[in-house]
């Protein structure tokens, strides 16, 4: 097991190196000079242009720029944002809690709804419910998040008045950032003392629609995966034996079938984290959610090289590490994998 873990950790090095290489060169292939963008539409003196280019390190040969980036990144320094002049690391961690909080809630929503729906579809195979659910999950999987987010807003916020339209918290409440996680910050003693639980409920109500929008694709994947995995397990001999022993249907499904069917589902949940982060780019734009996705879009538009490189590296590292953990869990559950 230790050998397997060491191998997986060592595999991270070329992966991250590849990601850094791609993010660095792809952004430089996109047309658009960040210095010209920064100097604005009115243009500027060529001397100012050169000076600014030098100060941003863009006058160096591209290989040298990459070397500097790699060397600094290795020391935990991802550079400074061209726009805000703040370090990429601090900019990232300012926004990461918002994305993480939303991602976790979206994933919980997807898991809580996806697994039971998948189980029911498998047990009621070829029934109306099964067809309806699989059709629905296919629609959920193919739905553009941008459109789906707006539909949710129209139904639940504008028509029914149940949830807020967008944002992370009502403007009525002024909650200081402590952890960056709104559901935690609104439960700080001084907030409860001054404003009761209203800010907490406000934060919670603001999470509902973006979490549904973001969690829809993972929900559809989890439901489909649970169904197919359950169907496979349900046709095994040991399930027939369990049924023959006279065990109740509930017990056969929950204890004998689900535990074995869960192995590929755990994998897909891990992989879904990646799609949650990419989904954040669109969800955060629609719901004015101040997270990493929205920041990333703004940085691409502004050709903020250090931010794009840093954000890609951060997100990719996170996805790779989570996948590594999924592999390790998988290996732990399934000894065949270790060999």
């Amino acid at each position, binding site marked *: 097991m230790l050998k397997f873990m060491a191998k997986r950790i060592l595999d991270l090095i070329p992966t991250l190196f590849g990601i850094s290489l791609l993010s660095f060169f792809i952004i430089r292939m996109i047309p658009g000079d960040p210095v010209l963008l920064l100097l604005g539409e009115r*243009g500027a003196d060529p001397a100012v242009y050169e000076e600014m280019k030098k100060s941003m390190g863009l006058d160096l040969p591209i290989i040298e720029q990459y070397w500097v980036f790699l060397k600094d990144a290795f020391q935990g320094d991802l550079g400074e944002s061209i726009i805000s002049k703040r370090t990429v690391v601090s900019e990232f961690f300012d926004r990461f809690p918002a994305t993480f909080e939303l991602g976790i809630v979206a994933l919980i929503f997807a898991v809580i709804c996806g697994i039971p729906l998948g189980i029911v579809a498998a047990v009621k195979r070829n029934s109306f419910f099964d067809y309806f659910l699989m059709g629905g999950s296919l629609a959920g999987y193919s739905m553009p998040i941008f459109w789906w987010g*707006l539909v949710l807003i129209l139904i639940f916020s504008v028509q029914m008045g149940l949830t807020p339209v967008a944002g992370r918290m009502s403007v009525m409440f002024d909650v200081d950032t402590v952890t960056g996680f709104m559901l935690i910050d609104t439960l700080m003693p001084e907030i409860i003392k001054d404003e009761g639980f*209203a800010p907490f*409920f*406000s934060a919670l109500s603001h999470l509902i629609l973006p979490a549904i929008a973001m969690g829809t694709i993972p929900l559809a994947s989890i439901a489909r995966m649970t169904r197919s995995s359950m169907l496979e397990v349900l046709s095994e001999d040991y399930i027939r034996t369990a049924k023959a022993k006279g065990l109740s249907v509930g017990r056969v499904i929950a204890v004998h079938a689900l535990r074995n069917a869960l192995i590929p589902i755990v994998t897909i949940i891990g992989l879904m984290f990646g799609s949650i982060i990419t989904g954040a780019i669109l969800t955060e734009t629609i719901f004015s959610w101040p997270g990493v996705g929205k920041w990333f879009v703004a940085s691409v538009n502004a050709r903020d090289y250090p931010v794009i490189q840093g954000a890609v590296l951060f997100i990719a590292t996170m996805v790779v590490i989570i996948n590594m953990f999924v592999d390790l869990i998988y290996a732990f559950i399934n000894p065949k994998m270790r060999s």
Partner: protein
Amino acid sequence: MKLFAVIASMLFSTQVLAKPFVYCSEGSPTAFNPQVTTDGTSNNASAHTIYERLVDFKYGTTKIVPKLAKSWKVSKDRKTYTFTLRKGVKFHTTKYFTPTRELNADDVLFSFNRQWDKKHPYHKVSGGHYEYFTGMDMNNLITKIEKVGPYTVKIVLASPEAPFIANMAMSFMSILSKEYADQLTKKGEMEKIDNFPVGTGPFVYKKYKKDTIIRFTRNESYWGPKAKVDKLVFSITPDPSVRYQKLKTNECHLIIEPSPADLTAMKANSNLVVMQGAGLNVGYLAMNTQKKPFDNINVRRAINHALNKKSYVDAIYLGNAMVAKNPLPPTIWSYNKKVKDYAYNVKKAKSLLKKAGYPNGFETEIWTLPVTRPYNPNGKKMGEMMQADLAKIGIKVKLVTYDWPTYLKKAREGSHQLIQLGWTGDNGDPDNFLNVLLGCTGVKSGSNVARWCNKKFNDLITKAKLTTVKKSRVALYEKAQKIFKKDAPWAPIAHSIIFRAMSKNVKGYKIDPLGGDIFRTVELR
């Protein structure tokens, strides 16, 4: 605040909260100092809330009125401006700064010298690039900034320049506190000056959460009539459809730039008010007069006759614009109403082309605007419509575009033949359009993309720039517009309309022709 939070606040909240005025803005400010920013988003968040200038534009107009300077005098040679400052103006008290004195000449000198004097200790802070200050040529125009007394400042210009006073009302000439700057220098935190603002304006900066919210409170020590609302909130909402939904659910009281597609529904909603005003802008197709065949006046006139501008306004601006005939928008004084536009006339266009020696037309390129701007919301679509119009007179057009910075750079170098571009006025002065976009100096600097240098036209606008008598300036600019029309270096396309949507209980708001959102007189009834 919906079901959950409303019930919760009724059950758990221990205090009654006053509802702030909520403005749904479109993005995050790049900084809280208009000296170092140029975008409207940053201007709204700082120049119109926190800061003030020596002079200002009268709310809803482009007329210059006194502000932090109660008066000013211009010398006989029109090169020296002496400003007398208002007494009793207090800088904001914030969490990070408590002023010990009122505004005086030192603050004015600090604010201007930071941008003008390259050796000033604050010049290099935040990059040392002052796009507007240099863009308006203030670095070359000003030769001396002098403190005459504690409340008197003298500015000497290199040459007489009538639009100078309008430049002084622009956001980048905002007055910052020298005392605050000195405090930051002592602490070694100079860069904070651009992000933790201290001004004299009607609102005090309270808090900014990136990409989320900006909070302001009313300046209770304001020297003039105080703001009507005690709390002002900018709720950052980039998507226009979402802004509209927030307006409908009362999460915003006023929204910036509603989507043209939503305007009809907004106007039909009895709970909302849609305000509109003519924008201070022009979208145009410039012809490179230094390149063949556009050096030929008849070719330029033929193109003017061939373009069906009304169809562009209907299809691209969705009717939210007016067809342009002059390089100046009609909101600017000296706009010449009498100028007659080239009518859409294919037959006449063909005969002019024949007269120019191109009976079968020719091949050319149109550079289409790669970005969305109020003066041209869809350059590609407009390019396709122009392509179809010009094909009718035998001109075969290839559409070309580049990324925005490259587009501008190449345009300044004059690599194009036909190019779509536009301009939004900065200070409401005709010189800001005619001289920048069509003057002979603009050919060298690259802002005159038609590369058209007409001596008569240039003499008129230069003369108008030197006199401060408005009546004379009007006459000169009106004449200049006639020459422009006759020589046809552009086909002016459209002037877009500015829209704002708000709840019906919002009172005291006016559309600013310069595009800003100003909240001092706004209230909720």
